[in-house]
């Protein structure tokens, strides 16, 4: 297996959505085992970053380079990025009526394992794991049988995302405003799921508006994204400072 001392290395990344330039020469390096929080005002490009990295159609990288575990990320199809271990927890998970959660999960994990040259889990083995994951995120097991996100509440959708993440065992997890719309109990469940997954060979990029989440998921680094680039980086104390002072004092630096 390829071992790299860098999980993700973003160099001068520019990206546009439709015809609007959103990311402007963004630079970021994430090492294995690290948690990076990305904060910033609305419209700064926080969600765009996750979408560009995961290869969502409509989000076009126009310049720059992204290396993921030593490989050219932008060159890969979205499903290959996923199989290589990049996971995006969606801000707004969509419903897929009639397709059971279990069916999607099994197919996803099978695809990822096949890509890594590993054998598929048996249905029984996998069911066991899925039930465990349900417990961890405090979702009733009946959710495994229900249609993907079909009729789930906002909080259930987010916990479902974390459950998927646990089963897929990604190398790099990008959480796109997973805390939005969560009450404090759900927030703790999500955070403890993430914390349980922390390990020396797994990294997290946590995109959030609020410092609150970072009380539970303690980041190694905090970055402020404004006008499409990272304008300030620091440790977790930066998040507290941002909460106290807001973003306006930083936005000028970005222009």
């Amino acid at each position, binding site marked *: 297996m390829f071992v790299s001392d860098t999980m993700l290395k973003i160099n001068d990344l520019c990206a546009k959505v439709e015809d609007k330039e959103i990311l402007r020469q963004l630079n970021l390096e994430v090492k294995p085992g690290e948690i990076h929080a990305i904060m910033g005002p609305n419209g700064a490009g926080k969600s765009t970053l996750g979408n560009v990295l*995961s*290869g*969502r*159609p*409509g989000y076009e990288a126009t310049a720059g380079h992204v290396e993921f575990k030593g490989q050219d990320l932008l060159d890969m*199809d*979205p*499903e290959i990025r*996923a*199989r290589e271990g990049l*996971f*995006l927890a*969606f801000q707004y*998970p*969509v*419903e*897929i*009526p*009639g*397709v*059971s959660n279990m*069916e*999607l999960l099994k*197919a*996803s*994990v099978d*695809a*990822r394992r096949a*890509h890594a040259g590993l054998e598929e889990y048996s249905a029984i083995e996998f069911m066991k794991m899925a039930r465990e994951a349900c417990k961890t995120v405090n979702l009733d097991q009946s959710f495994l049988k229900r*249609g*993907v996100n079909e009729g789930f509440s906002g909080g259930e959708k987010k916990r479902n995302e974390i459950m*998927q993440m646990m089963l*897929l065992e990604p190398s790099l997890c990008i959480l796109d405003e997973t805390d939005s719309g969560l009450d404090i109990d759900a927030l703790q469940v999500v955070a403890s799921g993430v914390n349980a997954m922390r390990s020396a060979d797994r990294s997290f990029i946590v995109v959030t508006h609020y410092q609150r989440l970072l009380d539970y998921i303690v980041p190694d680094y905090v970055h402020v994204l404004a006008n499409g680039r990272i304008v300030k980086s620091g440790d977790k104390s930066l998040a507290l400072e941002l909460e106290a002072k807001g973003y306006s004092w930083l936005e000028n630096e970005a222009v």
Partner: protein
Amino acid sequence: MSEQVESLIRKEYSAGFHTNIESETLPPGLNEDVIRFISAKKNEPQWMLDWRLKAFKIWQGMEEPEWAHVKYPKIDFQSISYFSAPKSLADRPKSLDEVDPDLIETYNKLGIPLHEQEMLAGVAVDAVFDSVSVVTTFRGKLEEAGVIFCPISEAVHKYPELIKKYIGSVVPQRDNYYSALNSAVFSDGSFVYIPKGVRCPMELSTYFRINEMNTGQFERTLIIADEGSHVSYLEGCTAPQRDENQLHAAVVELVALDNAEIKYSTVQNWYPGDEQGKGGIYNFVTKRGICHTRAKISWTQVETGSAVTWKYPSCILKGDHSIGEFYSVALTNNYQQADTGTKMIHLGKHTKSTIISKGISAGKSQNAYRGLVRMGPTAEGARNYTQCDSLLIGDRCGAHTFPYIESAHPSAVVEHEATTSKVSDDQLFLCQQRGLDAEKAVSMIVNGFCREVFKQLPMEFAVEAGKLLEVSLEGSVG
């Protein structure tokens, strides 16, 4: 939808091959002599020939219908050949060893080797290869139960009273243009009779093949479930790839006597034509069942093939408390056109019907649901529930719904629900972000959409149907 979806919609027809079995084929054309030839070939009694000739007269006086939401070049009925039979059939094979190896090979390509099927649990196969039934298995076991399952041509000789009584009793010769044509020239098909109180010990299955160039296929199936009996019948079709349009006009008649139940499941995968829509099969089918008191008929169909489909499996709910059901998945891709649905005719008191229709359109195809629910003046307390869902893949296809509701009884209740949705880029991306390729994602989404109907299919058919959708949609995203 994005170009992504567009490029997935392209794929060669996987069952596209053609077997060389010598055939006895009539030159193209249709007149009384052709009908006499067909009848003589089968050594039919005079009454059967007279019935055919009467149908031919009726057909000559009819106009080809044009009301369906489909477009195709005018069919020249004189350019079609109306009879062909595999030559090796003069003597009926007693076992598979005697069957033309080419035919066995064809089944192997389709993944249904007969020697394995004989051992497979519970499915008897009446293999219709072109116009004549070639192989019949499991006869013995069925005979023990008193079940008759044989080619209709054989039933004409062996069970003339049943044929005389019931043929044309549900779909009369003059019912429509294609039923009249079928009545005149029908080649062969299946005949099933389940005696009183008998539960058919296995599912009855027929595989249809169209294998002769330019040969119309005119199947005729008649199933009679006597009082209190039960039967599940499976019909599955695949066909070889070819260049010229082929007409297929089958008739299926079901008779469910008091307290009887017939479950009729179809997986249809005829050649739909190439990416430009050239060469596919025209499928103009009349399927109808009649339910007597407390009887039940359930139609389940998965339609993925044919260039043009015109098909409305229907129930006449004549007896009080009888039940009609229709579960349908119709998938169209490329330039396919489907106008399909059902008719539920409520005559008896407290009759009930359920219609669940799932239409999936991809490519440049057109998919129409056309359904009639009629509550007759005697249908006191009758109920219908209709649910009609359409799924669009891409933005160059069409979905249409034409529900007709007629109620002549104030106590009858008719419910109709309809939805139209699209496979969204967001759904696709969610699946891709979890590691599935776009094709697998679309197939999963579509299978989810069809779940309610697949649930109605017998297990082995449900698996086949899922695979069929996957194959049919290959190339629909990308």
